[in-house]
C-alpha cells in the first residue's frame, strides 16, 4: 500500500458532532504543510442531528475528485458504522467511539476503538476530541505529528493554553495507535513555491465576483446557495455598495435588473427552485438588455428535490430559463479555482454584452474546501461597461448590435422595455423591428466567445467531454485510460454558452463524444447534439458524484460499444 501517496478519510456521525469540522481541519492542516487536499460533504436536511458525513482526500499530488475508496472511516455512532463500513476498502481502518458496537465477524477491516472524549478530557480541554482523532490519523497515515503541531501553533497563536492542550491531545491520539501499523504513506510533502488559498466553492464565486467589481447583491435564502448571501451581507458594504436579503427570488431578480439598469454590477444567487422563479425576470433582462449575474448552485430536483445532494440537472433550464426566443450565456465551473474564475468572468461578460449571465455551480463544489493558487486581485480584472456619454435624443436600441448604454442621471434618457421596442425603447409590433431587435440580441453573444478551453491528445477520433463538477472524476478517469493506452481525446470548458468556437469546431470533427454527467437525460450531450456533435451521455443520478473507477469502466464500455450515430433516448 505504501505506493499510494494519498489517503481518504471519512468522518460519519450525527450533525453537530464535529463531523464537518473534522474533515475540514484535516484538509486544512494537510494543505498547510504542503499536501493537496479536497473535502466532500453531504448534509441532512435538518438543523440539528441527522446522519452527516464528510471526507477529506489528501495527496502528495494535485487532486481533482473526492476519492473512490475510503482508507479510514471514523464512525461516531452505530448508524454511521453500519452505513459506511461497506465503502471502506479491503484492509482499511475503522476508528470507532467506545459507544459503537463493532461487527466481530468483519475480517476485511482493522477496527480500532479510540476513546476520543475520554482522552480529550485528560488534556483539560474537552473540545480537543478532534485533535485526539488527528493524532490517531497522523500515526495511521505515517505523517510526521509535528506537521499537525505546527498547524495548531499557527492557528491558535497567542493562546498558549489551547496550544498546549491540543498538542497533548495530538500526542495522546498518536500514542493510542502506537502499536498499529500505518495504512499508507503520504510521503514528504512538496510545499509549492506560490501562495495558496484554502477556500470553498461558494466563497470563491463570491470573491471572483467582488474582484470583478461587484456593487450590488440581493438574494433569498436557499440551500446550497445561502453562503453566498451570508458572505455578501458581511462584506459587500461601504460607499456605493449594497447587499441585502430579498423577500423572494422574484424580488431578487427584478431588483438586480433595476440595479443593472442604474449602472451597477449586480448579482443574485439561488438554487433550482428559485432559479425557475427568476425565469420571467431573466427574459426581461435579455429583452431590455440589462447586465446582471445569476448564480444557480444546483441541487437535486425538480421541486424541493434533494436539497442537500448534488446533481447537474439544471443545464437546459439555465440555457433557456425564459420563455421566447433567447439563449443565455452559461458558465459552469468545474473546480473551486474555476468557481472564482466563473464569478469574475460572469460579471465581466454581463457588463460587456449588456445582458444576464448564468453561473451554473453545484452542491458538491459549493461545499468543497480545496487548496488553490491564491488569485491576484487587481483593477485589471474589471471590465467597464460601454456607457453613452453624448447628448440627449439618443436612440439606445438603434443599432443591429451592442451599443452604448445610457445611465440614469446622464444623457440619453430612454425606456428599458420588456415589450418589443423601437430604437428609443417604446413598444412596437412592427415585423421588421422584431427582426432587428432579435438579431441585435443574439448578435451580442459574439462579443463573449472568448472563453478558454482545455484539450489533450486532440488527434483521437473519440473524445471525452465532461462539464461542471463531473470534470474532476472525468479527468481522473481520462488519465487512467490514457495510461492504459486508450486513444481518447480530452476537451473541457466551463464556458457552455457561447462555447469557445474552436472547441466546438473540434468536437464536430469527432466520431464520438462521450459526456459523463449527473442527470437522467444527458442534458449536456443533448445540447451538444443540438449543435451537431455526435455526443453520447454517461449518466448517474444518485445525488452523489461519479466514482472514478466506475466511470472509467463506463467510458471504456461506451468506447467499445462502437461509434454509432444514433443515440438511444431513455425518456
Amino acid at each position, binding site marked *: 500500500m505504501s505506493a499510494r501517496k494519498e489517503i481518504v478519510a471519512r468522518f460519519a456521525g450525527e450533525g453537530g458532532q464535529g463531523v464537518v469540522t473534522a474533515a475540514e481541519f484535516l484538509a486544512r492542516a494537510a494543505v498547510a504543510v504542503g499536501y493537496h487536499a479536497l473535502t466532500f460533504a453531504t448534509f441532512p436536511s435538518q438543523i440539528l442531528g441527522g446522519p452527516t458525513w464528510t471526507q477529506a482526500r489528501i495527496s502528495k499530488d494535485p487532486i481533482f475528485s473526492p476519492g473512490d475508496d475510503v482508507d479510514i472511516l471514523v464512525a461516531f455512532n452505530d448508524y454511521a458504522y453500519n452505513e459506511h463500513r461497506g465503502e471502506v476498502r479491503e484492509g482499511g481502518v475503522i476508528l470507532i467511539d467506545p459507544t459503537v458496537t463493532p461487527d466481530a465477524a468483519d475480517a476485511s477491516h482493522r477496527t480500532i476503538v479510540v476513546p476520543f472524549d475520554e482522552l480529550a478530557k485528560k488534556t483539560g480541554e474537552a473540545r480537543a476530541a478532534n485533535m485526539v482523532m488527528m493524532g490517531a490519523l497522523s500515526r495511521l497515515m505515517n505523517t510526521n505529528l509535528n506537521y499537525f503541531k505546527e498547524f495548531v501553533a499557527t492557528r491558535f497563536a497567542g493562546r498558549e493554553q489551547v496550544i498546549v492542550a491540543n498538542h497533548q491531545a495530538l500526542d495522546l491520539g498518536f500514542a493510542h495507535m502506537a502499536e498499529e501499523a500505518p495504512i499508507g504513506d503520504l510521503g514528504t510533502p512538496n510545499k509549492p513555491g506560490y501562495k495558496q488559498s484554502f477556500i470553498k466553492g461558494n466563497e470563491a464565486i463570491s470573491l471572483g465576483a467582488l474582484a470583478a467589481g461587484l456593487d450590488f447583491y440581493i438574494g433569498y435564502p436557499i440551500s446550497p446557495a445561502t453562503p453566498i448571501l451570508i458572505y455578501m451581507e458581511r462584506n459587500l458594504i461601504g460607499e456605493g455598495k449594497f447587499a441585502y436579503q430579498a423577500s423572494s427570488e422574484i424580488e431578487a431578480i427584478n431588483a438586480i435588473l433595476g440595479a443593472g*439598469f*442604474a449602472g451597477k454590477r449586480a448579482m443574485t444567487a439561488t438554487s433550482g427552485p428559485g432559479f425557475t422563479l427568476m425565469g420571467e425576470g431573466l427574459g426581461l433582462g435579455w429583452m431590455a438588455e440589462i447586465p446582471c449575474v445569476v448564480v444557480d448552485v444546483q441541487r437535486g430536483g425538480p421541486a424541493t428535490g434533494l436539497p442537500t445532494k448534488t446533481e447537474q440537472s439544471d443545464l437546459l433550464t439555465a440555457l433557456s430559463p425564459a420563455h421566447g426566443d433567447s439563449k443565455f450565456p452559461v458558465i459552469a465551473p468545474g473546480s473551486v479555482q474555476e468557481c472564482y474564475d466563473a464569478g469574475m468572468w460572469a460579471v465581466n461578460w454581463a457588463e460587456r454584452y449588456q445582458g444576464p449571465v448564468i453561473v451554473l455551480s453545484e452542491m458538491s463544489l459549493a461545499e468543497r474546501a480545496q487548496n488553490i493558487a491564491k488569485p491576484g486581485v487587481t483593477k485589471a480584472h474589471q471590465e467597464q461597461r460601454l456607457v453613452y456619454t453624448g447628448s440627449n435624443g439618443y436612440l439606445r436600441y438603434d443599432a443591429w448590435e451592442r451599443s452604448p448604454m445610457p445611465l440614469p442621471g446622464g444623457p440619453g434618457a430612454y425606456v428599458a422595455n*420588456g415589450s418589443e421596442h423601437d430604437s428609443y425603447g417604446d413598444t412596437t409590433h412592427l415585423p421588421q423591428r422584431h427582426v432587428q431587435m432579435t438579431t441585435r440580441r443574439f448578435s451580442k453573444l459574439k462579443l463573449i466567445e472568448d472563453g478558454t478551453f482545455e484539450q489533450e491528445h486532440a488527434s483521437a477520433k473519440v473524445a471525452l467531454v465532461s462539464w461542471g463538477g463531473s470534470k474532476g472524476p472525468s479527468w481522473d478517469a481520462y488519465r487512467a485510460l490514457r495510461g492504459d493506452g486508450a486513444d481518447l481525446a480530452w476537451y473541457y470548458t466551463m464556458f457552455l454558452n457561447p462555447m469557445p468556437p474552436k472547441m466546438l469546431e473540434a468536437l464536430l470533427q469527432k466520431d464520438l463524444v462521450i459526456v459523463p454527467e449527473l442527470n437522467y437525460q444527458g442534458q449536456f450531450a443533448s445540447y451538444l447534439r443540438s449543435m451537431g456533435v455526435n455526443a453520447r451521455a454517461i449518466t448517474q443520478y444518485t445525488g452523489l458524484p461519479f466514482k472514478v473507477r466506475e466511470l472509467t469502466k463506463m467510458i471504456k464500455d461506451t468506447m467499445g460499444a462502437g461509434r454509432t450515430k444514433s443515440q438511444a433516448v431513455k425518456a
Partner: protein
Amino acid sequence: MSAKNPEYDFKWCPGCGDFGVRRAVEFALADWSQETKTPMSNNVVVAGIGCSGNLVHLLEGEQPFGFHGIHGRSLPIALGVKMARPELNVLTVAGDGDFLSIGMEHIAPQAARNLNITAVIMDNGVYGLTKGQSSPTTELGKVTSSTPFGKMETPVNPLELYLTLGVSFIASGYSVKPRDLAKLITAGMKHPGFAIVHVASPCTTYNDFYDALKGNKAEGRAPTAWEVPADHDAGDRDAAYKLIRKGGVPLGLLYKDTSRTSLDAKIRDIGTKAKPKTVAALMDAYDI
C-alpha cells in the same frame, strides 16, 4: 416620447382616467426637478404592465429615464434602482391588477423597509388591457368578462391594506384634477420613505365610474369622492383608519409617518460605521 413616434401603436381609450394621471406625473416631475434643482434625467419612472404602464411611453416634454418591466414587479425593480443609486428619484406607476393582485407580495417588504420611492397606483377596478376581467378592487357581484355570474370575492380596500402593512405615506386622489393630484405625488416624492398615491382612474370602456365619483343630485346619489377634512391629523394612524373606513374615494393625504428611517439611510449608516475591506484583504483571509 411616443406622442410623435409613428411606431408606437398603443392608445388609451378616449376619456381614460390615465390621461389625467399622466398630466399629474408630468407636473410632479417638473415641480420636483425645479424644487430640488436636479436634472430630469435624475428621475426614473418604473412601470408595470397594463394600460397604466404605458404612461411611461406617453409622457410629454423633457424625458425621465423609464423602465417598462413585467407584470406585477414594478416595486422590486424600483428597489434595485433606488438602492443602487439612492440619489435618484424613483417613481413607480401601476394599476390595481398589477399592484394588488399579482404584485401584492411586494408591498409589505417595501413598507417594512420604508423604501424611499413613490408609487402611483391607477385604480380602475378592472383589467383593461386584457379586456375587462375582474380585479381585486372590482365590486362584489359585478358581472365582468371573467365573472359571468357576478364577482364572488370581497374587494380589497387598498388604503386600509397600505395602512396595515405599514406604508409610511398614504394619499388618495382621482384623475379628474391633475393639478391637485400632482401636489399629492410631489408630497410623496418629498417624503423620506415609502409613499403610495392611490388614484381612482375610471376606465371608460369596462368600468366607467365618473358619474359615481361626481354623484347625481337629481337621482339622489351622493358623490363617492370626498375631500379629506382640513383638520385631519395625518400623523394619527387611528384617525386615518376611521377616515378610510368611511368608504368612497377620499381626496388628500391620509397618513404620514416621518419618524421612520428609510432603507437607503440605514444602508448609508452601515457604510459609515463598518470598515469595508478591500477585495485583496478579503482574499487574504483564506491564506494558508
